[in-house]
Every structure is written in C-alpha cells, then in structure tokens.
C-alpha cells in the first residue's frame, strides 16, 4: 500500500474513533459548572387571560426609574412554563449570569403586546421575587460566585404590581 494511502486510512480510522465521542447529554437545570442563579418557583392564583409570558430576570441594582427597567440580565431572559401541568408543581429555573451581586431577582409577567421602553410599565408586572429570609418584605440579595442555588420564590398571579410601584 502506498505510504500516502496508508496515512489517509490511519487518519480516517483515528477520526472515526474520535467521533465515537458523546454529543449532548441530559442536563439538569443547574448543571455542574453553571454560573448564575438557580432555584424554583411555585405558583399561586389564576393565570390572567391576557398573559403573554412570564420572564425570570435579575437586576444588579434595584431599578430607580423606568429607564432602568431594561438593565436586567440575562438577555433574552428565560421564561416559565405556564400550562396547567407546569403550574401545579414547583418549577426549576436557572439564570446564567456573571459573578457579582444581584439586588432583585423576580418573575416579570408580561401582558400580550409589543414591548417598548414607553409601554414597559403598562405591559410588565412584578409577579413575585426572591425575598430576604430575615425580612420577607424586602428583596433578598444574591451573591453569584459560581452557582447560587436555592433561590426559591413564589409567583402570585393574584398579587402583581407595576414595576413603578417599587420606584422610590
């Protein structure tokens, strides 16, 4: 066999062996090596008919005005499953985020319609947020250094607020 041919066949064999490598594998919501916030939400209340989607987002600093509303992370934000089966049980979520401190982790309910900076306060509602374990009236601070786990909270469709409700 000519040397070139032998080389090509060796290359082909090696490549086939390398291709036996595995592809994607099942991955839990918060896999090993994940960087960001992991937790779960539980649902209360009836889902409003005008619901478009419910996002989970994090703010590094608490928004002070409407112009701060879009400083959330990550982009695009993950959404929660909203069919009736998904709402009957605790639903895990994960927010891939850079290391740092996050002052507000919340579920943002969105009404049907195209979102813009002008109508954000009309179409968006705070539907639940991670609370300070020491004072459940206040948002809980989350420090991300790798994976911050156990950031659980309740999404209550019967007790939603415009985001401006929280502006100083």
């Amino acid at each position, binding site marked *: *066999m*000519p040397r*070139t*041919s*032998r080389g*090509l*066949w060796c*290359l*082909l064999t090696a*490549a*086939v062996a*390398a*291709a*036996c*490598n*595995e*592809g*994607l*594998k*099942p*991955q*839990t*919501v*918060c*896999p090993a090596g*994940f960087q*960001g916030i992991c937790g779960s939400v539980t649902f209360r209340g009836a889902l409003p008919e005008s619901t*478009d*989607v419910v*996002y989970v987002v994090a703010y590094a600093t608490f928004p002070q005005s409407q112009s701060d509303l*879009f400083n959330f992370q*990550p*982009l*695009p934000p*993950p*959404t*929660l*499953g*909203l*069919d009736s*089966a*998904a709402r009957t049980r605790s*639903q*895990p*979520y*994960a927010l*891939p985020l850079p290391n740092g401190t996050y002052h507000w982790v919340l579920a943002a309910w*969105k009404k*049907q*319609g*195209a*979102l*813009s*900076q*002008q109508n954000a306060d009309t179409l968006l509602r705070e539907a639940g947020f991670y609370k300070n374990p020491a004072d459940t009236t206040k948002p809980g601070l989350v420090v991300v250094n790798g994976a911050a786990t156990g950031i659980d909270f309740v999404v209550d469709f019967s007790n939603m607020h415009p985001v401006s409700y929280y502006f100083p």
Partner: protein
Amino acid sequence: MRTAALLVTAVLFPAAIAGQGSGSVTGAVRDTAGLAVRQARVRVRTMGPAARLVAITMASAEGTYRVDSVPAGRVIVDVAMIGYFPDADTIDVTAGQTVTHDVRLRLSPVTLLPTIVTAAKRSQLLDQAITSVSLVSREAISARAVNTVDEAVDKAPGVQFINGQVNIRGSSGFVEGLGSRVLLLVDGVPANQGDRGGINWDLVPVDQVQRVEVVKGAGSALYGSSAFGGVVNLITRELPTGAHARLRATAGMFADPPQQVWGFRDYTGIQDGLDVSASYGHGTMRAGFAAGARHSDGYREQDKADHWQASGRGEWRPEPAMLVNLSGAWASDQYQVPEPWCASGQCADSGQGFQPFRIDTANRGNTTRSDKGYFTALVTRTPSARIAWSARLSWLRTRFTDVYPERQPPFAPADFSVANRYGGEARLVTRRDTGQIVTVGVEAAHSDVTSNVFSGDTTGGGGRHMQDEYAAYAEAEQVMGPLRATLGARGDFLTIDGGGVTAFVSPRGGLVWPTRSGTWRASIGRAYRAPSLAERFVTTYALGFRVIPNPALRAEDGWTAELGRSWSPVPWLRGDAAIFWTEARDLIEPATTPSLQIQFQNLQRARLAGLDCNVTAMSFGPHVTTTVAYLYLDARELAHDTVPERALLYRPRHLVTLTADYSWRSVGVGADLRYSSRYERQDPLFPGDPQLGGKVLDLRASWTTGPLEAHLKVANALNYIYNLAPRVLEPVRTTTLTVAYTY
C-alpha cells in the same frame, strides 16, 4: 454507429470475422446512475499463451455494443472511457450463442479533469479557473441517496450548512436564512429568493442534477450581489436521445432519542418518497418531465413535513450550433415548525435544562406552507469556434405562509410573503487565435414582494416593495506564454421602490500558471451584497420584542484574495490547496436598539482568512478512493467603537471531511466523516446554551444489477446529538433505503 464499429472490426480483424466455432457478445455500458456511456471503447481478447485481440468496438449512443465472431471459450472483455475507471471481466462464449455482458463504469475523480462553466461564466478546464472550485458529481449525489441537493453539497470541501444556510469558507454564518452570502444558480440562472435572499435547496429535484459546481470566494465581478462568499451552480442532466424513464423510491426511519428523559413520542419516525422521471429525444427535439413527493415524520417534536415537486424541460436544436432550452420546476412544502427546542420551563422539561427533542409550548401548532417555482428560457448559439452568445429570461416565484395559532393580537395569526423575481441576461464570448477570450454581458432583474412581515409597516400591516437591478460585466483572459491572465469588472445599479440609484463596481483579476506537476492560481476581487428586501423591511415580533425595519440599510462589501495550487504528482493522487483572505465591512447583522427593538444594521468590519485544502487518492488501484478535506478558518469581527476584536459567530475554526469509497463489481461501500470544531464565541442571545462541535459519520452501501440499483445510507451513524444553530437539533441517526430503476 454500430455499423461503423462493425466495419472497423471487419477491416482490422478479418480473421476473427471469418473464424469457425464462434459466438457473439452483446451488452450495454452504463454508469452507476444507470445512464448510457456513449462511445465507450469495448475490447475483446482471448486468453492463454496464444492470447490475441479479437475485436475493438465502440458503444452506441444508447450505450449498447455487439461483437460477433468471438471464438468459443473464455475471453476477456474490457471497457474503457475517459473519465471512468476501466472495467475488465472474463466471460464464456459458446459457439452459435450470444452472451450478454452489461458493464457499469464508475466515474474517476482523479483521472478526469472536468470542464466547468461557473467560475468564468463560460466553459473552461478546472485547472484554468482563477479561483477554487469544488465539484459534486452525479455519482456522489447518487451514492449518498440524498433527497435534497444541500445534503450532497454539505460534504464538499470548505462548505458547511448551518440549519440550511450554506457557508462557503464561513461566508454567511447563521442569520435565520436571511440574506445568504452565497448565490444559487440553476443552470447558470440566479435562484435566490426575491424577498429573503435565501436559498430553496429543494427547488430542483435532486435526481435531475448532473453535477454541482461550488465556486469559492467573491463572485461579484461576474454575478453581482449575493455572490459575496461564493456561487453554487446546479447543472441539470442532459436529455439523451431515445425514450428513458427512471423510478426512485426511498424509505427510512429516524433513531429514537438516545436518552429516555428526552423521549417525546411512542413510535419510531419514518420518511418515504417516490420520484419518477421520463424523457424522450429524437432528431432536433428533446423533452423530459419529473415529479415526486415525500413525507417525513421528522426526528423531533412537531417536525412532520410533506413535499411535492414537478419539473419539466424541453430542448430544440434548430441547427447544430444553436440550442433553445425551456425549463421549469415547482415545489410545495407543508411542514410543522419545530424550532427552537425547549429550554427549562418552556415545556414539560422533566427537570432538564433543555429538551432538545421538544419544542417551546409557545410555538405549538406553528406550521408553514412554502411554494416556489421557476421558469427559464435560454437560447445559446455558437456560430463558430471563435464566438458564442446566449440570452435568457427567467422568472422565480416564492410564496410562504407561516401560521402561528398561539399568537395574540395585535399580531396577525399568520405571516405571508409572495415574491417574484424576473431576470434577463445576454452574454457574448469571443475567442481569438492570440489566446484571448473575452466575456461580456448585460443583466437585469426586477423583484417585487407583497408581505405583511417584510412590509416595513411597524403596525403589522401588509405592503409591497420593489427592487430593480441592472448590471454590465466584462472579463478578458489572455494567454501570455505559460501564464493565463484574467481581468474584468462588473457594474451594478440598484434601485429600491423606484428611488435613487445605488451603484457598485466589482473588479477582479487573476493569474493561472501551469507547471509540470500542477497549477498555481492567484486572484483578487471585490465582493458586495445588497441587503435583501426582507432585511430592509422586516417587521415582526420575536422573544417579546418588536423587530423593526431599516430602509437605510447599506450594502456590505469587501475584498477577497486567494493563492492556490492544484497538483497531481502521480496518476492516483490529486490535491488542491488555497490560502484565502477576505476583508469585509458593513456586514449586516441583527442588533438591539437602545429602545430594545431588534433591527438589521450595518455593524461589522470582519476578516475571514484561512487555508482550504483537499487530497484525493486512489490507494488500491481503481477500487478504493479516499479524500481528505480540511478548512482552517480564522473569522474575526474587527474592533470598532467600544467592541474589541472577537470571533465571528457561527464559524468553526476547523472543518474536516474524510471520505472513503470502495467498489467491487456491482457492490460499493463508503463513508463520510465530518468534524467541525466548537464555535469560539457563544451567541450572546443564548448565553447558557450547550455548545459542541460536530462529529458526524455517514455510512453507505450500494448494489447495482442491470437497470436496478439500491442504496443504503445510515446518516449520523453514531447518533451524535448536537446543534449548530441555536436551539436547533441537528438530524439524529437516519437509515434510508433507496431503490431506483432506470429504463
């Protein structure tokens, strides 16, 4: 022809004709696709110490041959034809009997130096092109038992498809099918969509494709917009004389998800299809027709698809130097829309971070109906060896309707677009005794789009837009001693909705220098791409955000250079290597505006450079062929404003393709292995998504006997689960059996 052959035999070998105790040998010479190989040389020899040549004859236009007065006993029949591996076999001849011996010839990728028609808009030998060209032969398409052309082109050196979007040396990346930087031609006629600028790869039935020419690098100097990164030309089959027919049936099944937690249905998905074609040629007229249909359950949730197609072609040769060609095709697809896959919380995720076989429930019920067709009239005339001209008219129509049952007002529950593209071209090629070849031409096209999603109306209403393109081009090639020098340019003029004219000039130059062991080539040219009407006027809704139009979008342009060499130091080895460099600016990409709306904008300066090489070897004589192709790509977005230099999205740095084929008599087996490295940069829109390279092994086997052929293909045999586009699962292991009968 048969009479002439017999006459030659009788004159050269009178002893054989007069022999006693003799029989006859007859048969047909066909290629592996079942089509006649005309004028193949058939030689009959006796065996043993007193071996002698009995007769030489040529196969007829139908591929048949007959040799009479062959001495009884064992003889050798060998058949040869330029461009094919020779075939030799022994047969036993009985006195007074006729023995039938049919022969299948395989195309030879090494000994054949093909003629190409795309790189210079005229016929030339492959080694005379100033840019790199890859060919996909009919045999390669047939052996791979594919249903659409893109499945065959995907394995060409330097080419990669990302969810249907073709990349030649990383040209396009992935932009959801909008604004391809590769131009598709069907027999030289532009066929990119009039609205999105993308490509419908199922426009032409794959069984009708003779070969595919992939011209790499900027082709704007001859083809204008869209040929920014290269040109793919589908050359359809010639219509033979006589009556011919072909029936092709396919059936296959998809592997189930390899992980139980990914299960999504309780049955195994299948696919099937049927294609028929027929042609007739007599005298100056030839005509052919093809039709087909196929169904697929798909390999993931909400992935069922049905496809219908029909095509026809007629040829009239009123005089030997003139050919009138009419051709058309129509295809319709109705399919469920399976993308993107379900991320955590977007479906019954079973606690998983993602479910690659399931879809986001928000997209449940989404379907698309897509119809497309074209009609082309082409006249070519070659009154002498020095001059040839051609003229064509073409019409391409695409229409799609996307249905979104879960969409809520104010957004329409369906998007639609109807696009027409009318084109015309006239071309003249002159050849002088001084070694000069000049190609000149003019081209015009009018596109109109009626749509609610490409309307530019941000309230979601419908609208109509038009684009007119006019162009003139000229290119000259001059032989200067051992060198061939090429210089040319094309001017393009573009108007949108009857507005002001935008002009572009795309020059190109190159040199070809043949040496004893191979050929050097070098070229430099300008590339440009005008934005598609969809990129300018798209207005829709995605991820909860408005996608807004940008009528002020400018064309993207750049310069591309290449230095390449092809070589064949020994008859069984052929190689080609090229280093390439593209500097691009104003690349059109989707961007997020300060008001959180998505818009196509001129964003990037980019550099794409690398090495594209391949080696083909026949290692054990004519039975084994191996090809190794490697693309090294350094694709960088250059620093601008506050953005530092970084990798371009959706461009793997390494792309390796290994192909091996073995054939013995009527049986063949083969394999393709494709490796693409992991993208260096994660799409910022999908920061947490898994990201892998691709390692896909395809296996195939074939068997032919007489007019019947069967192909077994196991695509992605290792069932490697991966994605190249965001949240779009690539096909799982798919086993397909294709059976064809050729009359």
